[in-house]
């Protein structure tokens, strides 16, 4: 365990001064800023009786889940592996006296850590953004009682259900040395999600799982969450068991 933690800490060193690390802050900030601007633009306020905090955070989670998170995830994961592909890093790493499986697990863990970190930022920025929106918009009065537990649960669900997409991006980023393959996968996956929504089983499409884990009806939310977590864990485990890369 100590060795695994050391390996994860070395992954953190590798991420210093990289775009991946900046994106942890930039990606959630863009989403919160976008949603805040939309609300600030509504001159008459919301115009109907709604739980403002849940509405505000739902909109943020929707943009995050369907668009920003998959793109952020594909970029961050691709960069975590890319540094090894371009610098002959695999060769050096695999001559270190550590079990080979541990090397991959440390990569997966460090990439996931960045996603968790960005989710935390999103959560914090949602509260800060909501409060500022209410402060600056005369017609929008954000309640003092923030439904923190409900908002946190939704964030955790989105993160959990995203595990499948995260795992796919991990496998692609590890398997192919070219950065264009994982980035292309992320763009294509996000793009086809638009079409998958109309399909009967579209809610099981990996890039739609995070959204459906929160907003799915008739038990689809639970199914999406289970598929997201179990599918993700399966792919991550298979990646470690059947290690094969092209670099």
């Amino acid at each position, binding site marked *: 365990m100590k060795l695994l933690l050391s390996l994860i800490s070395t992954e953190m060193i590798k991420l210093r001064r990289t775009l991946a690390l900046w994106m942890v802050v930039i990606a959630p900030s863009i989403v919160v800023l976008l949603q805040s601007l939309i609300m600030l633009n509504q001159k008459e306020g919301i115009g109907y009786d709604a739980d403002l905090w849940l509405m505000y955070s739902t909109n943020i989670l929707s943009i995050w889940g369907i668009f920003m998170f998959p793109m952020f995830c594909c970029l961050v994961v691709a960069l975590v592996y890319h540094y090894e592909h371009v610098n002959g890093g695999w060769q050096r790493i695999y*001559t270190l006296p550590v079990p080979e499986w541990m090397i991959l697990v440390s990569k997966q863990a460090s990439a996931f850590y960045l996603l968790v970190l960005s989710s935390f930022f999103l959560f914090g920025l949602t509260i800060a953004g909501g409060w500022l929106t209410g402060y600056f918009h005369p017609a929008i009065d954000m309640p003092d009682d923030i439904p923190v537990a409900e908002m946190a649960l939704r964030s955790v669900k989105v993160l959990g259900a995203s595990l499948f997409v995260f795992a796919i991006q991990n496998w692609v980023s590890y398997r192919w040395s070219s950065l264009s393959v994982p980035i292309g996968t992320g763009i294509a996956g996000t793009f086809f999600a638009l079409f998958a929504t109309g399909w009967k089983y579209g809610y099981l499409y990996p890039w739609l799982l995070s959204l459906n884990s929160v907003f799915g009806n008739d038990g689809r939310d639970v199914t999406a969450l289970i598929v997201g977590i179990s599918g993700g864990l399966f792919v991550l485990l298979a990646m470690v068991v059947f290690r094969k890369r092209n670099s």
Partner: protein
Amino acid sequence: MISLERVSFSYGKQKILTDVSLSVPERSIFGFAGPNGAGKTTTIKLILGLITPDTGTIRLSGLDLAHHRKEVLSRIGSLVETPSLYPHLTAEENLEISRRIYGTEKSSIDRVLTSTGILSAKKKKVKEFSLGMKQRLGIALALLHSPSILILDEPINGLDPEGIQEFREFLKNLVKADGVTILLSSHILSELEQIITHAGIISAGKIRFQGTLDELKLKQNGKLLIQVSDPEKAVSILTENGYIPEKPENNWLSLPVTGQQDAADVNALLVAGSVSVYQLKPEQPNLESVFFDLIQREVTE
């Protein structure tokens, strides 16, 4: 210290190494030479466990690599082809990554940066390094955990003449002071010759020679350089008498010989044929010529 027993390796249907047996003695500097594509880097990758052999056994310090990978790798420092460095990180950060995994003291970073002569560049990003400095940092990485075996694939690449000289002394000192065993591959054979105590030559995936440097030199007969008044006549006389002189350049002939008596016989023949002999010089074989001779022999056979 390092031993390969009947190791074979293929990429798909292409046979890269065939029954390679190699023995690198303890505290030696073993030069591993061969033409491009001969199997040098593949052999080194096998020793480092980066690839696994189809057949055969690899042992380091008596431990079977297949069953004691972690223990074996903890004793090896390596630099294969170009150094694997993270250009956006400083030299110190690059070393810190390995230090955390090996669990060595913090001070080991300054120690290896000092011994490779780049301590002043400790806080500098690697992307600002010259090729030679990157090579030094690669060697520093290989030495960080004070390994007992050092495996260096083409380590002289990118070093300037002064750097090469320092590097030679540095390696010799490592063996002398720390008892490190070094396996060194390089295509700059004249540089190997000045460092190594033992040599191995590989060609087309087979070991053609292994032994001490002196044993290797004994593999090739010397040459006699002769300066004469009439080179064409001299070639004709020597050819008639069963010698095989090489094409003359200016007034100089080069002639493969087997011993001292040949020099006297050649001189007598030329003088008898009215060719004036100005100079007779024996040419000592160097590693480069021995190497090419060995490879050439394999091709001819």
